């Protein structure tokens, strides 16, 4: 699927937001029951960077996303996107969830248009044009009028991606977006997401359980420990782009990164007594 297409910027006349930086500084967060998830957590992402967060269950990924989206507030510490404090309605933020969360009563095209029509900055015709443009970017222009239940799981997730991209976010949060898909579809969507990212150039924070996926996609893989350990370690991925499923995944360097991350993850799981109890 690694077809080179003309850059999106030539088709879209609206100026795109430049990629955003993300800074999380000294975050503390505990639930009311006393369970501490973050204790002095910090994470910095550069504009345009593709960063994966990799971690076992119980590392606090869900809480991290809730904090990042402003749905929950940290007990202390600051979260800035482009040097502005984060809040849920921030137009700079885009989300792709683990399940597509499409509106089942709307067609694929109307789903992609949803955010544009909520924000009312464009006329109806411009909204539809833009929605069509992003739907074609994910290769779904032919099923624009289909309802979500008529689409496969992979297609639904593409619509969901197009819906987030249509708002031209400066920072895209992807929460295990392809975890529920089969391996073939997942590999295709990995490649396609990278192609869109290289065209659109936003910052991406990608949460995943999958080591291969993290290496294939990222500039940098951040391994999270069991809560409240925070960041366990980081690994910069120095593989040339554009990356392609077969060419990249067979590289010795790719396999080396994989071996290192596997031993890191096994380290994370086995150093934590409570975790090994939970997961045994």
């Amino acid at each position, binding site marked *: 699927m690694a077809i080179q297409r003309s850059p999106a910027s030539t088709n879209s006349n609206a100026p795109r937001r430049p990629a955003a930086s993300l800074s999380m500084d000294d975050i503390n967060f505990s639930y009311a029951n006393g369970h501490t998830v973050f204790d002095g957590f910090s994470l910095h992402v550069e504009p345009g960077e593709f960063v994966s967060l990799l971690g076992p269950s119980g590392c606090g990924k869900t809480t991290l996303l809730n904090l990042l*989206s402003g749905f929950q507030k940290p007990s202390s510490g600051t979260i800035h996107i482009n040097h502005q404090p984060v809040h849920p*309605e921030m137009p700079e933020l885009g989300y792709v*969830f683990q399940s597509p*969360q499409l509106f089942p*009563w709307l067609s694929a095209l109307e789903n992609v248009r949803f955010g544009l029509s*909520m924000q009312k900055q464009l006329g109806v015709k411009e909204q539809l044009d833009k929605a069509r443009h992003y739907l074609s970017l994910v290769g779904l222009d032919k099923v624009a009028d289909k309802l979500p239940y008529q689409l496969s799981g992979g297609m639904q997730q593409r619509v969901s991606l197009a819906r987030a991209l249509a708002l031209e976010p400066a920072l895209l949060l992807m929460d295990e977006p392809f975890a529920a898909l089969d391996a073939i579809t997942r590999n295709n969507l990995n490649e396609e997401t990278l192609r869109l990212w290289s065209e659109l150039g936003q910052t991406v924070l990608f949460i995943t359980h999958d080591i291969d996926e993290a290496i294939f996609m990222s500039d940098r893989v951040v391994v999270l420990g069991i809560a409240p350990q925070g960041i366990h370690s980081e690994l910069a991925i120095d593989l040339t782009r554009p990356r392609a499923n077969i060419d990249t995944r067979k590289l010795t360097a790719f396999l080396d990164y994989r071996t290192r991350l596997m031993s890191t993850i096994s380290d994370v799981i086995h150093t934590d007594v409570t975790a090994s109890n939970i997961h045994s």
Partner: protein
Amino acid sequence: MRFSAKFHWGWLSLPFLLIVWSAIASQYPAYILPQPWDVAQEAVRWLKDGSLLLHLRASLLEEIGGFALATVVAILLGSLAGLSNNFRDFISPLNSLFMAIPPVAWAPLTMIIFGLGYWSIVMVIFIAAVFPMAITIQEGIQSIRGGEVRAARTLGADTWQIILHVYIPASLPFVTAALRIGFSQAWRALVAAEMIGASKGIGWMVSMGGQIGNSNQVLLGIATIGLIAWLMENLAFKRLEKHYQTWRVQ
């Protein structure tokens, strides 16, 4: 297309009923259990002098009044109970209590309060329809997935936009199902209430037929009740519901 591909077993059920009726009726004198064609003659008589339409009109006006009132209140109660856990906890026991009481049991009381006539019947219909409708709508609202609401919020929708563009479209299948359930509950209660105290209407027609020993009139009333319920269910509500259900196919 071959005939067998079009054949639907449902086409046999009404002829079957008429044959069984006729067979049983043949064992009795016509003044006790008349034949279908006797009732058909009775229907022609009632239609010609206009009295069938008069009674039907009276019943339908009561039905519309009670059903409309119940719909408004049920949407209000059901939405609140769907959205607020506290309100749901508060209203659920009341709902179960009222659902357990046959609506027609209220008829004597509404007749004391409102007098014999339109409003006493409308109130019985209202009580019969409002609770099952409210429950259906409440369950519908509860089933709206938090994920859709959250997705809408991340796409920049404010609270009003979420109500308008998520809650309302997502609840239309349940609201239309509630309309169907409410109408049929209202219709049953209407007939029962009219039999207890009314001076016109299809229920009155049945009960009066019983009192004067006119089986033809009783059976004509029953057939009319069934016909109206069937027409509304199949021609109006099921189509409406189906129209708003297409996207729910999983």
